[in-house]
Structure formats: C-alpha cells, structure tokens
C-alpha cells in the first residue's frame, strides 16, 4: 500500500479544526479515526493490482545512439478500474523514458503503454521491474505491487565507420573483377577469357586460346578471392582505457573505450572483406574466448558480428597472449590474415605477444591495429611552461616506446596500424586493401 499527498493534506486541514474546536484532544482522536477509516475504505475500493497481466512487444535490438520503443500491454481482468501510476523500470544506462506514466485501465480491458529507450552504452539492457500503484476513488491511498516482466534489448555497436565503406569499396572495385586487370600481377588470379576489343593490352592476348577459337582472345585477371580473415579482438585491461571523444551522447566526458573503437574498425574491415569475397571469422579473447563468429555467410556476417560484439566488456585482467595465439592457430588451419586489435603497450607486448609472435607470423599474415590516444598527442605538443614540457617529455617517452614496439613488430613481418580513434577504422581498411593489392593474403 501507499499513501497519497491528499492523506497528509486532510490531516493538515484537520489541524485547523483542532485549533478552533472546544475539545481539541477529542478532535485529534476523531480525525485519526476518520482518516484511518477513509484510508481503509480507499484501499478496499481501489482496483486490484494483484491480478494484472502484462505483455511486452517491441524491438529486441538497437544500435547505440538510436532509440527503441518497447510496448507494454497492461491487462486488467479484475472487476474494478485500475487508476494510478505505472513505472517501467529499466537499467539506468538504458535511459528509459518516461520514467512513470499515468495508468487508467477499465475493468476487463487492456491498455498499451510505450517506453522509449535511448541507451548510452553497448550491451544487453534488461527490464527490471514494472510497478503499479492503483489509487482508490478518494485518492487517499493506493495499492502497490511490483511485477517482473522480462525483456532484453541488445544494444549493438553503432558501426559509425560505415561512412568510410563506399570509398573503400570503390578502391576494391578497382582491384576487383569488375575492372578486370589485363596484366597479371601480384595478388591476382586467372579470371576468364574474353574477346579482344580495341584498346586492350596486346600483351594479355592468350595466343593458344586464340588459335583454338580462331578469334583473338585476351586473358583477364582478378584479385585473389576466398582468402580467410581472422579478426582477433583483445578484451584485456588495455582495451578498457578511454580515448578520444565518445561519438554517442550520454557516454560521459572521458571518452570511449579502446574496445569500442576497435570494434568499429573490425566492423569496417569485416564489411569490406566480405564484399571482397573473403571469409571473415571473429574472435574476442583475453584469458578465455569471450565471443567468436566463424563460418558466417556473407549476408549474415555483419549482423552476427555486431550480435557477438554487443555484450563484450573489457575485462580488467592482463590478456593471455600465448593462449590467444593458441586459439588463433587452432582455428586458422589454412594460411589467413590475422588482424589483431590490441594496444601497443610496450611492457604488455614484450612480456605477452612478442615471445609467441613468431609461431603466428610464420604461418599467417599478421596485422596489429592499435588506437592511439589524441590526448597523448596533445600533450606531446605542449611547450612554453615547464609543466607542459615535462608532460610533453612523458608523452614523447610513451610514443617512443610505441615506435620501438612498432619497429620490433615490423621486423617480425607484422603490419602495424597505429592511428587516432577516428582514423583507425579507415587506416585498417586501407592496410587490408594494400595487402590485398600486394597479394599477401
């Protein structure tokens, strides 16, 4: 049960009567009795909440930064009208609105209420409770009850870097069979024979086929297809650090985790590679496999990727590089492109990845992509005061370490992409295209 403001107001009004009455003590007693009787009557006459039935409908998935509408159908099987308020409680970062709605369901009828979610971060957001407060006809007291009406909305990564996709696809088409190359080069494979048209390079004429067909025939080439790309996402402690400015409102002033920027880059790479005809697998790993996608068809790749990425959070443990390499090697039996999204943290790399890197880079092409911190770049440019110069020295030291580890990785034959948060996705896509053009996949 719950009281309303009217009960308090009534008691306050009774105070005036008490003041003017000849027998104030009796009036106080009488007021208490009358109020108790009225509240009890109101409680008895209020619509029953115990029997209410609920049903949800609406979206199950929403991209971060967008809104989802969830319907809640309230069915009143009781004999009395249920009037009052309803609160549909979600987890705070689901940013559900409105927080409470007025409810008026006549007997044996149902009403549909709508809650709008504008989540502020990735992951699964759950409906926690539905609380109904049914106010009596006098408006003095209310019956209240909380129900559990489960519903989960999965907040997917926003894939903001998809605006870079058209430009990369155009680049891909230059490599691709739609602009068939007439010159055999690295990273191309035989595509088809077709009739010679004026303007074709005479060097690409296939004389043997021309002799068979009694017509001049040229060979065309196309980039390699059906390569394998394995995207490995490091979800260890280094991925929790926040960099840049969060592109989604409500995420807080301290930026976006490296993990989310890495996911953005991974999604762009996956979309590009799928269009290029390569098979894309995905693995998220810190000390165990957090999520994986393998063998997804090209049409379903992106949806299954975002679905697998959505609930991943950075674990505050040191990533197990040896375990990660073992997991990669067990999954990638054929030669493939391993894209490792991690941080170029010198100590973590030297102790973790570098000792086990040769076993990986000897069998696969490895790309390490890392999100640089624009704040460090800003600090490195600091001049003028001694404080700024000391900060600049600290930033330069970190960047020196990153350069050092980059040089070591390159000596192992590993491609390194180290870019600012907004640039890391297109930079990784460009690195992939360069590798594809060079035939190193």
């Amino acid at each position, binding site marked *: 049960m719950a009281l309303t403001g009217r009960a*308090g107001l009534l*008691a*306050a009004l009774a105070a005036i009567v008490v003041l003017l009455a000849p027998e104030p003590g009796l009036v106080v007693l009488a007021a208490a009795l009358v109020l108790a009787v009225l509240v009890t009557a109101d409680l008895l006459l209020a619509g029953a909440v115990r029997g209410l039935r609920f049903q949800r409908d609406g979206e199950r998935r929403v991209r971060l930064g967008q809104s989802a509408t969830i319907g809640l159908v309230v069915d009143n099987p009781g004999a009395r009208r249920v009037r009052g308020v309803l609160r549909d409680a979600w987890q705070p970062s689901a940013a559900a609105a409105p927080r409470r709605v007025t409810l008026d369901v006549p007997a044996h009828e149902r009403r549909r209420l709508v809650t709008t979610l504008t989540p502020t971060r990735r992951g699964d957001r759950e409906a926690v409770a539905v609380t109904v407060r049914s106010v009596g006809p006098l408006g003095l007291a209310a019956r209240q009850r909380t129900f559990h009406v489960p519903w989960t909305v999965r907040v997917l990564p926003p894939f903001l870097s998809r605006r870079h996709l058209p430009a990369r696809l155009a680049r891909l088409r230059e490599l691709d069979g739609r602009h068939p190359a007439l010159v055999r080069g690295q990273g191309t494979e035989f595509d088809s024979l077709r009739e010679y048209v004026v303007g074709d390079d005479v060097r690409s004429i296939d004389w043997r086929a021309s002799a068979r067909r009694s017509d001049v025939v040229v060979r065309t080439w196309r980039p390699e297809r059906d390569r394998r790309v394995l995207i490995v996402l490091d979800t260890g402690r280094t991925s929790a650090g926040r960099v840049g400015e969060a592109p989604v409102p409500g995420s807080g002033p301290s930026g976006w985790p490296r993990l989310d920027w890495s996911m953005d880059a991974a999604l762009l790479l996956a979309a590009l590679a799928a269009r290029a005809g390569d098979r894309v697998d995905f693995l998220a790993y810190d000390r165990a496999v957090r999520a994986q996608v393998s063998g997804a068809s090209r049409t379903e790749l992106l949806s299954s990727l975002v679905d697998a990425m959505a609930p991943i959070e950075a674990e505050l443990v040191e990533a197990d590089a040896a375990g990660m390499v073992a997991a990669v090697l067990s999954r990638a039996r054929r030669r493939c492109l391993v894209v490792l999204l991690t941080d170029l943290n010198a100590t973590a790399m030297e102790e973790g990845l570098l000792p086990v890197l040769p076993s990986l880079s000897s069998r696969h092409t490895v790309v390490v992509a890392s999100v640089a911190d624009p704040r460090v770049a800003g600090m490195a440019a600091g001049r003028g005061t001694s404080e700024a110069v000391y900060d600049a020295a600290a930033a330069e030291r970190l960047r020196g370490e990153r350069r050092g580890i980059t040089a070591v990785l390159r000596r192992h034959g590993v491609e390194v992409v180290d870019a600012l948060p907004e640039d890391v996705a297109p930079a990784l896509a460009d690195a992939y295209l360069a590798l594809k053009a060079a035939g190193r996949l």
Partner: protein
Amino acid sequence: MTATTPGRARQAAWVTSLVVLVLVTAALPVLLMGGQAGGRSLDPADTSLNGSAALARLLQAHGVQVVRVETPSAAVSAAGPFTLLLVTEASLLDRGAAGRLAVAFGDRLVVGSVPYLDVLASGVRRQGPVRARSRAPECTLNEAVRAGAAYTGGTSFTGPPGSTGCYPAGDGRSLVRYTADGHTVTVLGDASFMTNLRLAEDGNAALALNLAGSRPKLVWLAEPGDPDEAGGSGDGTDGQARSLGDLVPGGVKWAVLQLAVAVALAALWRGRRLGPVVAERLPVVVRAAETVEGRGRLYRSRRARDRAALALRAAAADRLAPRLGLPRTATPEEVAVAAATRTGRAPEPLLALLCGPSPGDDTALVALAAHLDTLERQVRDS
C-alpha cells in the same frame, strides 16, 4: 520527457499549497488571539481594553487596598466591617452565593447586569434597558455630583423608599443608592465606565474612584480564571510575568500534534518508492592517458630534467632521421651532423642540442624543447 515536466509542475504546486496551508495554520492562533484581545472583562488584573487594571492602580494610588477574589466564599471571608464588596456582571454567581454575599460585612457596589439583583439589592427593581451614553448626574449624591457627567445607562432602576438616584435614564435612574441593615448598597446599570477603554472619558474615573474608593479596603469579585493565574495576582498585578507557554491556548498544542500527524503522513507519502531501486554493473571508467599524465607529474615533482630531455631528444631524432635520409637506427650524433649539413648551420650547437648535457634548470629545459622544434621546422622546410 514531455510527460515528466507537467508532473514536476503539479508536484511543485502540491508542495507549495501544503507549505501555504501549514503557514496559515500556524498563523491562525495569533490572528484569533488578536481578535479576542483578552477576554477577562472588569478584572483588576487585566490590562486589555475590557479589563480594569487602570482603575485598580488608581485605587491603590489613593491608598485603597484592592483585594482580588474569584469565588463568593473568598469574598465573604475577605469582607469586614470597613470593606466595600464590588460585584460586577463578570462575577460568577449562583443564588446561594448571592445570598451569602448579601449578608456579608460591609457595603456593596453592584455594577452592570448582575444576576440575582433581587437578592443582592433587595429593594431595587429593574425598570428597563436603556442606551449607555454620557449622562449628567442631576442628583444630590456627592460622589456623582463631584464626578460630573459619566458614561452610564444600560439598565434603569427604581430604588426603594429613601434611596438616592442619579443619572436619570428612561423612566428610572441608572445609579441607585440606598442603605439597609447597615449596608450601603449602590447599583449601577452599566459597567463600561470602569473599563480601561472608558476610564479616561468624562468623569468616569472620578465616579469610579468615588464609588469604589469609599472604604479603605475593596474586595473585588472578579471572573474566575486559570488556577495558577488567580494565585499570584491578588493585588492586581498585570500579566507580564506569564510565560509564553501560558499565553498559548490549549488548542494550539493539539493542533501541533495534528500537524505532526500530517507531516508523518506526508513523509510516508513521499517516502514510499514506486518500485525497487535498479542497480547496474557499470564498466570501469579510466582514461587511457592517465598513466602518461602520472609520469609527467612524476618528472615534474622529481625535477627529472635528464630523463625529460632524453625523451624529447630521442623523439626529435626519431622524427628527423627519416627526413634526413638516415635509417631509424642512426645515432643522435649522425642525425646532428646530417641536420647541420642540410640546414647550413654549424654542427657544434646542433650536437649540443641533440646529445649535449642535460639542462641545468627548468628554463633551460623549456628552451631545449623550443630549439628542438625550431630544428625540426628548419629541416622540414629545407
């Protein structure tokens, strides 16, 4: 969002109205008290407009002992052969008490519409109500003649044979005096000339002093009040000594109790949550640059100019080497020499800049950073 804003406004209106109500309730007793202005009329201890404290003070100044009593029995015991008993319309009487007063020692002064007049002043008869106003004495009674015009009226009387009547009103007189059984009994139809309000008008004060001060001791039968109040005010002290708690009427305490109930109900209303508090496991918020900032502060607090200079020089050399066509593994000395060749500057200062001793103070460190920037710009532009 649009749904919550009117909700908030309605809530604010509720709270405001509640606050206003509480304030009005708190102010009511004060207003009511002001309206009553003290209810103890014709009381020698009351300083309000209806009271008669001024007259009591005047009598005391003229050497008359004023004894304030509240019950007829106390009046009878206080009365003696040389006392005057003052009975006003505010005195609480029944027939038996009136009878006891009628046979008590001393003279009697009966003022206003006192009940059982036939007992207290057996020969006097009520003639009829008349308007109270300023009247001339028109008689030979010394007290009245010396006082002159006074505010009298109220009731007109006819006295027994041998009585004296003054201030004619209607068919009778509004003041009648007669003597019977050794008592001199004076009856007046209206008592307002004795109140603090009227005492200063006309000859009211003189009349009241003449009538009430005729004996050295005046027994004033006043309206019964609170027991604690009646105790200490026997000689007509005013109410200044009473505490604030005594001034607050009894109903206010109960009203405060009722308000406390109201506040408790309001607390229950506001305290009841609409459903449980929702908890959520939030990810850790840590900025990636924190370690770098910490290292910068550490350099600063330890004045680690050598390490800071080393980091700045190494970074500059790393950036210069590819621009000068040197491998990344080139030593700072090689970079300095190559930069001198490219920019046409003397090699010694560049050697000192890129691989000299560490700066001696913070100013030198700031200057070193600026010089490195200049060198990089020169190499870039050359």
